[in-house]
């Protein structure tokens, strides 16, 4: 056993840090306040550096970046709060198209997605189906050689800046739900698509997208007719390596330490000299080291060509649940001052802790809720019977 990152990965970390010093600006981070956790400049810079294509698995024709280095890249992006949500989305999108797409889709979309010129987004959830994703009701019906799509999708985050949506549709309502699904890559400028913003408690903007007699040629179909669940499974597989989310807490811990050192209580003392505050900061730092251990472990497994599954669920579950806990602690730590948002000129660090507090809940919901992940651990790791 040796948990130390190889020297090559540490050298790569230095390269990523240099890249971020050059390309990531405070303005980019601040610009995400409009709700879009995406910076086109940063996304293209990452693509230009070859890291987007690099992150696509080699067996699909991608760069096949060492999973340990990929892990370091994601770690650094998160530690620096880089608005790079689109990276993971792009890698999964391209991987799905390379694995299941026809020649047309591969040549039409993949180069644009890899260069960072075009962006994808996911159309899985619907108003009536979230965790039960296979219950999708958006209909695609044959229309001569093509398809007509009608329905609606929820949480199509990034759709308003994206070029394609990977759409999960129902093509056969008369068979068990997993067997009647078909995927499409849908250009978002196709007539009949409407994108409406969904604002959230956090600063993040999501979207609801509506499909009203959207006509599409069969060349936009991804995978077999009624084979959509197979495509979905590969999406989940590719998401594991690139999803990130293991390091949500360090920026809020950093902000809390800053607060603890600079604020003064009524009696003139610094919060950071209070044992109760110190203990919570240490507990949070311990949780971060647990997350880091998980992240390095899954990366090392992937690097050896081992497929991991439940460990990814555990990592996501632990990281998001502890992040929520940390945000609540640090908000409380600030007392009344914790309530101030970034609109208040006196808010500490532009209200960063308050923003994290409002952002945190979504991390335990998107990309697989904590409850779904607990089910997966119970069944896949502990061997308990299915409970639903």
């Amino acid at each position: 056993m040796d948990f130390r990152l190889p020297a090559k990965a540490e050298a790569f970390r230095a390269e990523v840090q240099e890249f971020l010093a050059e390309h990531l600006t405070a303005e980019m981070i601040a610009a995400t306040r409009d709700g879009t956790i995406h910076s086109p400049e940063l996304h293209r810079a990452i693509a230009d550096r070859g890291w987007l294509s690099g992150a696509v698995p080699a067996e699909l024709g991608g760069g096949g970046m060492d999973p340990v280095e990929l892990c370091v890249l994601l770690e650094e992006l998160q530690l620096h709060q880089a608005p790079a949500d689109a990276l993971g989305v792009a890698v999964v999108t391209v991987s799905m198209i390379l694995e299941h797409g026809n020649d047309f889709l591969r040549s039409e979309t993949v180069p644009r997605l890899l260069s960072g010129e075009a962006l994808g987004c996911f159309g899985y959830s619907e108003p009536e189906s979230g965790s039960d994703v296979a219950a999708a009701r958006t209909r695609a019906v044959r229309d001569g050689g093509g398809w007509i799509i009608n329905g609606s999708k929820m949480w199509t985050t990034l759709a308003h800046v994206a070029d394609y949506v990977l759409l999960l549709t129902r093509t056969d309502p008369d068979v068990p739900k997993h067997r009647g699904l078909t995927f499409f890559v849908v250009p978002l400028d196709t007539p009949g698509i409407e994108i409406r913003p969904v604002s959230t408690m956090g600063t993040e903007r999501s979207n609801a997208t509506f499909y009203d007699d959207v006509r599409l040629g069969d060349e936009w179909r991804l995978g077999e007719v009624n084979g959509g669940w197979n495509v979905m499974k590969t999406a989940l597989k590719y998401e594991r390596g690139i999803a990130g989310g293991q390091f949500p807490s360090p920026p809020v811990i950093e902000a809390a330490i800053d607060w603890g050192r600079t604020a003064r209580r009524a009696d003139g003392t610094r919060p950071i000299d209070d044992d109760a505050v110190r203990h919570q900061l240490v507990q949070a730092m311990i949780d971060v080291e647990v997350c880091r251990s998980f992240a390095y472990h899954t990366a090392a497994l992937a690097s050896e060509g081992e497929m991991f599954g439940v460990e990814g669920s555990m990592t996501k579950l632990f990281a998001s649940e502890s992040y929520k806990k940390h945000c609540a602690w640090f908000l409380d730590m600030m007392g009344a001052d914790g309530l101030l948002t970034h609109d208040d000129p006196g808010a500490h660090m532009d209200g960063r802790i308050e923003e994290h507090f409002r952002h945190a809940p979504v991390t335990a919901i998107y990309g697989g809720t904590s409850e779904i992940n607990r089910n997966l651990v119970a069944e896949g790791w502990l061997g308990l019977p299915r409970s639903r």
Partner: protein
Amino acid sequence: MRTRYSEDQQAVAEAFGDLFAREATPEAVRAAEAGCGFDRGLWSKLAAAGAPGMAVPVEHGGGGASLVDLAVVAFEWGRRIAPVPLVEHAVTARLLASLAESGAVDTALAGAVAGGEPIATLTLRPAGPDGAAPLVPAGAVADVVAGLRGDALVVGRDEPSGVARPNTAGLPLADRDLSDAGILATGEVARGAFDDALTEWKALMAVAYAGLTREVLAMGVAYVKQRHQFGVPVGSFQAVQHGLADAATRAEGARLLAFRAACAVDAVTDGAARLASMALLFGAESARFAADRVLQYHGGYGYSAEYDVQLYYRRAAAWLLQLGEPAAEIARLAEADLGPKRPKAA
């Protein structure tokens, strides 16, 4: 980078896993609790297998293995909550060997301890200026006791009483007197050597906690699959599943952090002491959480003396407390990571 056991480590895990499963049965654990918390027969078998000194350099009579290799054994030891002072002895053996290197300790003593006799231990907390060392782990059975007395690192050799102070987990805890113990080193050298041994203890106990947690969870899973209520297995209820899933998630995180800490000690990484301390705190917390869930899901039987979960429940709390208050350990981490507390202005 490799976060799984090597083939050799796998073989060590299997060999010692078998030995502990065979010898450190729940019956043996109960029998030891009725005495002073020590099973001499098991200790002899471990010594014959080379465990006590396996991570001591070969030139000092040990097996020359790394701390991580020893941790593989500590994991199996933790799984069976085996009533032998493996971790205390092993880290003291390494301490004595390192001091024998500089001539501060008699090579013959270091070599004998590496062989498993006499039994050695470490006071985890500094003794008082008068040499009084209260509640020393393995204090009831160790002949050789190393520890800090003031700014001196001392080693005393005395016949142990063979009587433990009655305690929650039937551990061989006893008070020792280090007033006559010989001084091996003083000042920074003493503190550094002691701190290194303590870091090793923390890393190994963190791994042992991961072993304990693994086993108590296995016990819980087996029980909820077999126990039926309302006509179905208790383990089919989502409330039960989710409690166990949370426990398993923390357990796996704790296991990874603990082995990562042990690796950092082997690599003499700057952050090793920090990681070992964090791993121990998190390991203890996850063990207590898992033992609590498993006891709860056993219903009344979990609370009965007849079932084994209570043996694990008590040790989950006890192992860490031998070091002192968890809050004090957290305060030490805070001191290192956040800087010293500023005194309140007058």
